């Protein structure tokens, strides 16, 4: 004989609690659908419903308050075998704090079923109002009745993309309703309406469940969707991230004796980071060790763009640059971002566009019309000038890297030559 979903022990609920009904009828529904206990992963939330685990012969996963929707989703993502069923038990309090988790699972139409035990208040912590408490329903924190309308979790789940959503009264035999929910492929949710016998019944004497639900505008019913259920659609994958960074060909040897720190700065969108990367790769090709760090505002498409490079014949441990040996400035944005640094330079060189006002500095100042080759090419023009005039590495090796990276073709080489030879 097949093992039943539920053990034979008495369930741990107060007399008259709808949770008892849900547990028994959920078990019956799963058995009716032909599931074996270990085909089912029951994910429970925090709340009275969550103490059901010990009574179940299924796998049980008992998580945090409100998060069972997301925890169940994680399990659903990871299940590869067909014939498994993820069932999430959650209360109206859990559904309130974990609303987005439920909406996300519905949006993705993940293969899982959620049973919302809506007993209209937080039963475990003293009968407080939840986000799913119907308007007018009395709780220990709203003696005159909840002044606000509750979430319509069914309508929200349906709109988000669920395959199947239902709301039922937790009275009589609901195993057929639960079987329809558990039998779906894709995301399904059922809201079972109950009144907590310990708080709700006492605080709302004489009110009947059907009347409370109806007066709150929460009709019972079924809502179906047609969204395709979730499947893993992964983009093209890399089998080895390291193979995507190719070794750099060795060119003619550098002529650098001591470490050199360089700051290149201009405006966003003007190729500063690209120029720095080309210089970095050309330096590696010349046998140097290199570090390259980019800085820009959080709005990456506007304002300054600064690159910091360290070139060294030996190992580089620390890559921070306080005052650089060389500052290359190609725009007002770049100048403003590095003004203090430039003014602090006691030696070294400042390579700056001739259209910019030079700050007071002890660095050797070299002014060239870098922007005359177009703002987008100004930084590349400046690093080519550096290669030509500073003798650290050859212009040839830098041009070779530019060609290799497919950046040379669009450059106005003749105009650049005029600038760097000037």
């Amino acid at each position, binding site marked *: 004989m097949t093992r039943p979903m539920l053990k034979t022990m008495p369930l741990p609920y107060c007399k008259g609690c709808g949770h008892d009904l849900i547990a028994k009828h959920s078990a019956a529904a799963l058995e009716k659908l032909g599931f074996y206990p270990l085909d089912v992963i029951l994910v429970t939330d925090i709340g009275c419903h969550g103490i059901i685990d010990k009574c179940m012969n299924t796998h049980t996963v008992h998580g945090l308050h409100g998060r069972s929707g997301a925890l169940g989703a994680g399990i659903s993502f990871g299940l590869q075998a067909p014939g498994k069923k993820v069932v999430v038990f959650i209360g109206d309090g859990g559904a309130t704090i974990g609303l987005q988790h439920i909406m996300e699972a519905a949006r993705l139409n993940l293969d899982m079923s959620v049973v919302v035990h809506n007993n209209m208040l937080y039963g475990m912590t003293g009968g407080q109002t939840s986000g799913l408490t119907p308007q007018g329903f009395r709780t220990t924190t709203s003696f005159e009745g909840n002044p606000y309308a509750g979430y319509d979790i069914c309508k929200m789940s349906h709109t988000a993309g669920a395959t199947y959503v239902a709301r039922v009264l937790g009275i009589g035999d609901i195993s057929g309703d639960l079987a329809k929910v558990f039998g779906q492929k894709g995301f399904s949710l059922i809201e079972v309406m109950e009144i907590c016998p310990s708080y709700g019944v006492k605080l709302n004497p004489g009110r009947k469940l059907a009347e409370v639900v109806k007066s709150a505008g929460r009709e019972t019913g079924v809502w179906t969707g047609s969204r395709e259920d979730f499947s893993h659609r992964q*983009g093209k994958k890399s089998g080895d991230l390291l193979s995507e960074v190719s070794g750099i060909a060795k060119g003619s040897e550098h002529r650098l004796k001591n470490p050199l720190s360089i700051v290149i700065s201009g405006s966003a969108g003007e190729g500063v980071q690209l120029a720095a990367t080309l210089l970095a790769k050309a330096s590696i090709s010349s046998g140097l060790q290199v570090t390259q760090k980019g800085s820009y505002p959080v709005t990456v498409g506007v304002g300054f763009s600064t690159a910091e490079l360290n070139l060294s014949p030996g190992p580089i441990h620390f890559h921070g640059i306080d005052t650089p040996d060389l500052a290359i400035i190609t725009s007002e944005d770049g100048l403003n971002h590095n003004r203090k640094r430039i003014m602090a330079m006691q030696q070294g060189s400042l390579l700056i566009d001739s259209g910019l006002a030079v700050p007071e500095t002890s660095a050797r100042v070299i002014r060239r019309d870098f922007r005359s080759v177009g703002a987008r090419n100004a930084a590349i023009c400046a690093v080519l000038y550096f290669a030509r005039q500073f003798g650290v590495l050859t212009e040839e090796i830098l041009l070779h890297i530019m060609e290799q990276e497919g950046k040379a073709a669009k450059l106005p080489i003749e105009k650049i030559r005029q600038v760097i030879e000037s």
Partner: protein
Amino acid sequence: MQEKTLQDLVLTDGSRLIIESLARSGADAFIGYPITPANLLYLYGSQRMELMLAAPDEITTLQWMTGLAATGKLPVTATSFPGFALMLESINMAYMMELPMVIVLVQRLGPATGTATCGAQGDLLLLRGMISGGHPVPVLATSSFNDCWTLSARASEIAVRLRTPVVLLTSKEEVMTQKSFGLSSLEEIKPVSRPLYDKDDPYQSYKAGPKGVPDFLPVSQNVHQVRLNASTHDQQGNLQHSSEEALSNTRRLEHKVVQQMKDYLFYELDSQDGANSLVLACGITAAAAREAVGMMRRDGHRVSLLVPKTLLPVPQTYLEIIGLYSRVVIAEETMNNQLGELLFGSSRPAHIRFAGGLGKMISPREIIREVMS
């Protein structure tokens, strides 16, 4: 131009090394919510991991990871403080459920949102106290590109062997800065083995083996019942208030990490004969410390260097090493010496000095100044 290929020198960043290492060591899912400065890790994770899921927030991230781990996956995420703060309760859940995962925490300048694009080292004490009850979660800190490679693989191994979340601690400058790097220096990485419970006796989800770690079974199998529980529970995984069996299980969580992490003690000690001074730094500041120690030695000073890489649980070894020196300078990108507080509490001995600061990398000169003062 006459040329030959430099055998393996590339321009790369630490994020690439971390994700590739995690993938090779067995991580098979990247779950995340984008945040600066962990965005390169997110990008590479999406490209490299067999399964990538974009979660709508960091709470969901950890919940999805835990669910995946329950099915036998080894999930990974990368975040920074604002995201990590949201993850905390769920990390506690994964710790209590004893499910493996790796969380790469990229430190940036706080408090709160702080400055997303500015590095910092201010999350260490948060990590020390992140589990309610003060139980330690294994934390490894990278201090070089080679660490990004080797420690990431060790993080996977620890997560699986100890059945626990593991934090790989790093910072903005370590994972976003590009450097020339020789790939041939990288050790080979093999996937961590994942033995499953294979006995006929009824499985108890939290019945520990000789090393204090329970055998694992995923909820996807249908031979044995699995009970996972984030509340106080007995060996079977059934919720308990505070029975002796359940409290013993909670004590075991701490004991297994403390005991087993003795096999995962990673640090770099560059001691010099006759040195009375020791520079102590981890993470990004270790780079400045190496530079500073090199500079002082070139000037004829005797000084040693200790770079802790296993940060939590705190290895006693560090205190033993520190005890050999009359002057110790701890360098760190904070204003309050979190590493010092972790090692010595709030009243540090007078010979423990501090070179720190906010919003910038600590420079070798600042460290030297403190050693020489």
